[in-house]
């Protein structure tokens, strides 16, 4: 399984970055990818921009552990997890999870597992700048905890 994990403070070209997970690998039959994008509204308030903070060092370890676990559970040929930090604007890609496998079912399972775990185990935090000039830390969602719990303990 070929793995690439990256945290970057520069724009994330989510589509172009998906290519390496299958390019040049004629045994890959299916690629499932998830792109998380910044929305311009959250809890009903217009959001102008957002700052993504993380815990350098721990982030990479946490993502590697999640991807390793996915590789133990499913037969995967390639995984890429790329995540933005710093200031972003609506429509900017925040995260890309791309999974290549010989069979699509395994790619779907692994891709959703990785993003569900990332959302509850990887140390990233979002702070929003709202249209009225205020800022606020985004609250964690119970639905994310629930989604991750559905996969059982790693």
């Amino acid at each position, binding site marked *: 399984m070929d793995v690439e994990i990256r945290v970057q403070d520069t724009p994330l070209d989510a589509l172009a970055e998906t290519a390496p997970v299958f390019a040049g690998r004629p045994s890959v039959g299916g690629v499932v990818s998830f792109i998380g994008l910044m929305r311009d509204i959250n809890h009903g308030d217009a959001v102008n921009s957002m700052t993504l903070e993380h*815990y350098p060092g721990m982030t990479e*370890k946490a993502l590697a*552990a999640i991807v390793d676990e996915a590789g133990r559970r499913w037969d995967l040929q390639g995984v890429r997890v790329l*995540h933005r930090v710093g200031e972003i604007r609506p429509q900017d890609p925040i*995260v890309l999870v791309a999974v290549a496998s010989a069979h699509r079912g395994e790619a779907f399972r692994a891709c959703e597992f990785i993003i569900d775990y990332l959302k509850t185990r990887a*140390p990233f*935090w979002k702070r929003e700048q709202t249209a009225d000039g205020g800022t606020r*830390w985004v*609250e*964690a969602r119970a639905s994310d905890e629930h989604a991750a719990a559905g996969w059982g303990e790693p």
Partner: protein
Amino acid sequence: MIRVLYFASLRDRLGRADETLSERPATVAELRAALVARGGIWGDVFADGQRVLAAVNQEMASAEQVLNEGDEVGFFPPVTGG
């Protein structure tokens, strides 16, 4: 000696990003209790029932985890990436 890091809303509320403690509590729970004992905002942030996550040496840690000399402990709110 242990190194303690605070992230995101915790850092903002505490007005501190990191510190080095010369005393070494035996566990994460004891460290948290020592922080509560500072009173004021520390008591609010780390009170029982406040959802604060901890990592030891950059891996998620339970309250029972034992601390060793030189450990790095990170405290932070539930994560919101992705």
